[in-house]
């Protein structure tokens, strides 16, 4: 009965989203005062979605093989945690998770929003209900997660072994929280454009959603990058894969939106631009979901391709995105911009930041979709790879980083103080770092040298806003900004160091042989078989030394039985100044084994930086929440 209860809840939720949409239209047209009922409908709708998702978790936890989805994607021998994670490790389950997050966001908006005018809030809830309605239709008609199988399957058909990994079990839900969190910013923008009330109150209502979604996207992308790094076995941390790009594009838009919404909240400026970014950010989330779920772009994330589902998702995407952009085109002209600002001011800095982020977004967008466009128009097949993205986006990222050192020091509206004087120490540090990079790393690319110098200067510069007064009395939001910007410096340092200093060694070795990689001497001791709950493996033993103690590393080649798949499990040894990354490949006839070894100085900084950026977001979130709380207590 569990599956039927879940399905019933989904149908009810779909009906409620239709009701919410109709009520909010009536409210908007002034036919009916439906403020309270629209809010109530949104809250009950969220609860029903959550209930349906809980039912899906239950059938997966029990491995109920009479549910088709469980039979296809789970297995009784799978570890419990991956049984549960299997609920969203497939198409139907992940779309149900998507809708659940959408429903919960709508409920939270209905429950906690106080400042917005009733008209704008109800219009936003109406937009949210319209989104939910479309995706409910998609679930019920094209992707029913609760369909039964009669007779029940004797055993499940496993889960993609690549996905049997703690990092990946939580990577998709994190990204979804980010993707769908942006739906609220989208709905608020649509609501505000409908009522014409684009103002500071709207910005304050929108900011926590953007910030929250952005934190999850940052964490999701960072985790996904680390997963690709250790699971794919080639030592790379970003592959410019279409699905990776699909998560990066909403992040870029959300990062720009986060900054422009602050301008709207503080200075009542950049109205049209902020509205457009809010529409773009969620549109990119939908494009991302469509690209991943329709499987139209070839990618390492191979999901089953189903043209009906692709068409359905495309229809939804087309309706929502086109409608929002048409609304923008019609209404943007009537928005009155707030106080003017000068060319040297914090507003101007944020505008520049927004423009560069948008251009990078455009570059990633074009690079990801260019092959599709060319094939559609000219019939010619081609692929766009890392060299394009690195060459075009890299220099822009450096410019953005330079801007990052100056921007936070500028005042609103008009800057009269000699700000650059404050940057003397960071500039000095960056210059020294650049000199060292040129001297010590002659073979590194100019971009990675600049990146190292930029990171060295940006790190101290990011902390300057804290130095004005007693740092512990600075607002939490200022702390958040400083931490996030310092995190960007740390991540840039990691990326530049990885490209400048990585040492690679690909070789075939017999047991007993020694291989040198950078400062390390790695002894290949031998191979032994190993086994886990649903896999067997060949495990190599490597003993790595560089003067001091011995690090024992055990990379594996794993063979999963159900479905039969082979994966490389890299063994990674993290030391203070970097990571030694080892992979065992296949043997040849003479008993020599393929070994892939990398010494990657400072590479961990990439993900440490990502985590710091998210932590900064958390500080800012807490700061704004505290301020809103006080404002409410005073009112």
């Amino acid at each position, binding site marked *: 009965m569990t599956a039927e209860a879940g399905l019933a809840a989904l149908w009810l939720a779909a009906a409620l989203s239709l009701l919410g949409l109709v009520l909010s239209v009536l409210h908007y047209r002034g036919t009916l005062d439906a403020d309270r009922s629209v809010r109530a409908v949104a809250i009950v709708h969220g609860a029903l979605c959550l209930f349906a998702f809980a039912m899906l978790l239950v059938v997966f936890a029990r491995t109920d093989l009479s549910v088709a989805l469980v039979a296809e994607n789970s297995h009784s021998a799978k570890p419990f945690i991956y049984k549960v994670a299997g609920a969203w490790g497939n198409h139907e389950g992940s779309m149900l998770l998507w809708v659940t997050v959408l429903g919960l966001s709508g409920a939270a908006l209905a429950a906690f929003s106080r400042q917005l005018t009733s008209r704008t809030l109800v219009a936003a809830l109406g937009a949210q209900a319209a989104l939910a309605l479309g995706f409910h239709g998609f679930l019920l008609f094209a992707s029913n997660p609760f369909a039964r199988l009669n007779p029940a399957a004797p055993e499940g058909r496993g889960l993609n072994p690549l996905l049997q990994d703690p990092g990946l079990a939580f990577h998709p839900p994190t990204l979804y929280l980010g993707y769908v969190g942006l739906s609220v910013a989208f709905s608020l923008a649509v609501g505000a454009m409908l009522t014409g009330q684009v103002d500071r109150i709207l910005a304050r209502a929108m900011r926590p959603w953007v910030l929250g979604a952005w934190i999850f996207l940052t964490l999701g992308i960072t985790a996904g990058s680390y997963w690709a790094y250790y699971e794919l076995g080639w030592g790379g941390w970003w592959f410019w894969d279409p699905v990776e790009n699909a998560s990066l594009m909403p992040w870029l838009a959300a990062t720009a939106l986060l900054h422009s919404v602050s301008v709207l909240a503080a200075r009542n400026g950049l109205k*049209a631009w902020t509205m*457009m970014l809010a*529409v*773009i950010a969620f*549109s990119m989330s939908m*494009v991302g979901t*469509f690209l991943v779920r*329709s499987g*139209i772009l*070839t990618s390492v994330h191979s999901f089953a*391709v189903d*043209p009906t589902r*692709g*068409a359905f998702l*495309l229809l939804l*995407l*087309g309706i929502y*995105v*086109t409608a929002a*952009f*048409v609304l*923008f*085109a019609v209404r*943007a*002209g009537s928005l009155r911009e707030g106080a003017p600002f000068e060319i040297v001011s914090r507003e101007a800095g944020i505008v520049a930041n927004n423009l560069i982020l948008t251009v990078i977004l455009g570059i990633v967008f074009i690079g990801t*979709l260019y092959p*599709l*466009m060319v094939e*559609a128009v000219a019939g*010619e*097949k*081609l*692929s766009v*790879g890392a*060299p394009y993205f690195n060459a075009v986006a890299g220099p822009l990222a450096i410019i953005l980083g330079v801007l990052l050192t100056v921007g936070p020091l500028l005042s609103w509206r008009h800057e009269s103080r000699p700000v650059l004087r404050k940057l003397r120490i960071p500039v000095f540090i960056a210059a020294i770092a650049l000199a060292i990079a040129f001297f010590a790393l002659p073979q590194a690319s100019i971009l990675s040298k600049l990146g190292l110098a930029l990171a060295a200067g940006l790190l101290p510069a990011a902390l300057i806003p804290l130095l004005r007064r007693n740092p512990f009395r600075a607002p939490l939001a200022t702390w958040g900004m400083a931490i996030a910007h310092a995190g960007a410096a740390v991540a840039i340092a990691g990326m530049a160091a990885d490209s400048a200093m990585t040492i*690679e060694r*690909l*070789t*075939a070795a017999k047991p007993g042989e020694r291989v040198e990689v950078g400062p390390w001497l790695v002894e290949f001791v031998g191979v032994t078989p190993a086994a886990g709950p649903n896999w067997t493996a060949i495990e190599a033993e490597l003993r790595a030394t560089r003067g001091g103690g011995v690090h024992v590393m055990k990379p594996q080649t794993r063979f999963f039985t159900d479905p039969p798949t082979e994966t490389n499990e890299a063994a990674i040894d993290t030391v203070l100044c970097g990571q030694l990354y080892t992979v065992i*490949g*296949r*043997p*040849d*006839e*003479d008993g020599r084994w*393929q*070994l*892939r070894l990398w010494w990657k100085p400072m590479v961990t900084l990439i993900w440490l930086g990502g985590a710091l950026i998210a932590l900064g977001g958390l500080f800012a979130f807490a700061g704004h929440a505290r301020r809103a709380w006080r404002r409410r207590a005073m009112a």
Partner: protein
Amino acid sequence: MSRSLRFLPVAVVLILIAAFVWRLANPPDSTVPSRMVGRAVPAFQLADAVPTMPGFTSAELATGKPRLVNLFASWCVPCIAEAPVLKDLKRRGVAIDGIAIRDRPDDVAMFLQKNGNPFQRIGSDPTSRVQIALGTAGVPESFVVDGRGVIRHQHIGPIAPGEVPTILAELEKAR
């Protein structure tokens, strides 16, 4: 913002949707033909991969007669399986140049010593730069280059003994 500019995003969205519709109607064909076939070899200069043999430049591939260019590596296991086939091709009079991908001189020398040396010249591509320019994803891969330095055929993966006639036919066509 002018009115027409404000409708620009709508136009971009519509174009995008049209492309997606087209793709859904014409599902992707997973075989990727090389874009390089019919084009001149991209310009490169490769230093020698082993001290005992010369490297070569792309210009030196235009010798007036068709040649086979083979991308290999000492760390690549399928390359070992391919080695006897290359030797067979050499015996049949095919001129073969090698490009060692991400390799080291000692390792290449050892590989040649163990598996035989069918190559006339071996260039070293330590950073995969030429490999990417040639549009290949893995090793081994082989290219038939005609006498004017134009790529006429691409073979992905090791050449199996049964595929020797295909390669010989392609070399003949390129003459």
